[in-house]
């Protein structure tokens, strides 16, 4: 009633700002509520379970070649070395002659060192809401990521191959196509934008890129699933109305190189919780 009285007394211009203000308040309230809940849950992130499973998988002798990743897999800092490896990927790996993000590198190790078949891993690389657990690869990424807690993102853009991947990733982020003419940057190219209530980080800035990579890999409240940045990029392409990026392919690594390097210097806090 009171609301109606006020509205009746105001001009169209003021009405606009009232509606604006109300929406802003609602939006801020929803964001605050979520943040509170998310922060509370962070103390006991369900992703810790994934990290523990990942540790077992990392140390166990597995695959047709019966070797462990701990004794065979080099994530860029030496075989079995984990501290700070995640925040320095994507990086160039001479043995594969490719720039690889963390997930892709672990997959490469599983295939090359342990003898798993790529097609078997790529068949179901991400957890769906009704699955009982996350795929091994997700648990491994969680475990590896956990060993970069408290370390700054440090993608090596002085490496010419990484730099090229960064520039290609930037081009991919700006590439408009599909039925709706969307690029990544249609939604993630300027500051302070929203889709409905969802804030959209600007991936071309340090702050926005940090928002995009912090908290991943993540336990996601929606569906209660553990997911990685590989999945996140794929879901962006889905909403862009593009076809599906192939699992662990260059196109995803290029985007991750671009976004992660833009967040260089920002302190990584480990696997997180997402809405």
């Amino acid at each position: 009633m009171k609301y109606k009285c006020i509205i009746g007394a105001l001009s169209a211009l003021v009405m606009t700002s009232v509606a604006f203000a109300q929406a802003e308040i609602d939006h801020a309230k929803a964001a605050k509520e979520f943040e509170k809940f998310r922060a509370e849950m962070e103390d006991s992130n369900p992703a810790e379970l994934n990290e523990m499973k990942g540790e077992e998988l990392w140390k166990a002798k597995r695959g047709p070649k019966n070797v462990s990743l701990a004794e065979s897999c080099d994530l860029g800092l030496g075989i079995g070395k984990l501290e700070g490896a995640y925040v320095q990927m994507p990086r160039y790996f001479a043995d594969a002659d490719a720039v690889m993000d963390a997930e892709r590198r672990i997959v490469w190790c599983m295939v090359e060192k342990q003898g798993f078949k790529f097609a078997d891993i790529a068949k179901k690389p991400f957890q769906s809401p009704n699955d009982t657990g996350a795929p091994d690869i997700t648990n491994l990424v969680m475990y590896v990521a956990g060993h970069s807690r408290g370390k700054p993102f440090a993608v090596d853009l002085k490496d010419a191959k990484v730099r090229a991947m960064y520039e290609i990733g930037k081009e991919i982020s700006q590439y408009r196509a599909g039925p709706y003419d969307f690029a990544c940057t249609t939604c993630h190219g300027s500051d302070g934008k929203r889709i409905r209530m969802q804030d959209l980080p600007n991936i071309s800035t340090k702050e926005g890129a940090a928002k995009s990579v912090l908290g991943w890999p993540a336990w996601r409240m929606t569906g209660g699933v553990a997911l990685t940045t590989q999945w996140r990029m794929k879901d962006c392409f889905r909403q862009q109305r593009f076809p599906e990026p192939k699992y662990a392919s260059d196109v995803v690594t290029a985007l991750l190189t671009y976004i992660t390097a833009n967040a260089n210097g920002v302190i990584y806090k480990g696997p997180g919780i997402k809405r």
Partner: protein
Amino acid sequence: MKGKYPLIALMGATFVVAAAPALADADFRAQAIAMIKKDFQPRGQADLDRLAEDGVQAICNRTGNKPPEAIAKTLEADQMASVRWPADGKLMGDWKKGEKLAQSGRGFTWSDKPGLPVGGNCYNCHQISPKEVAYGTIGPSLLNFGKLRGNTPEMQKYVYAKIYNAKAFNLCSEMPRFGRVGALQPEQIKDLVALLLDPESPVNK
């Protein structure tokens, strides 16, 4: 047909002028496009043909969404010519149907059911009715759109054409070409015109 050749010549001239500083970018773009071509697979309704650029996308992709004005004007005119007007000549439909359509963001992803109808996606990016507070901000606010601008036949034509093909007015607009790509049918666009322009619509209350 005739118009195309001067356009190509003009584009050529532009690229020659821009070639020296832009060489590195062009090289990375070529590599990016090659990567996109090799690293996607079809899924659901999203086939690989969606990765190819049409003329408008190609120009916008190559100019950072800032095409030279002469090219923009020519191509905007082409886009305008693509607008199909309703058979009955009426441009204002039912704002209530328009509001419902504006709410839905479904359609065209690989996880959506193929085929029509699809949502208007309007609230994803625009503030429209004051009753809906969950609106996006990628596009401008459309609150009081008709109240501020009136609903003259010219205004109706503008709004209809803008929703049908936003690129007819701003070649590299971020807004999809809803009519041109067959996402929205003329009847649906009429309902959206009414949502923005009908004095009875909550947008103008």
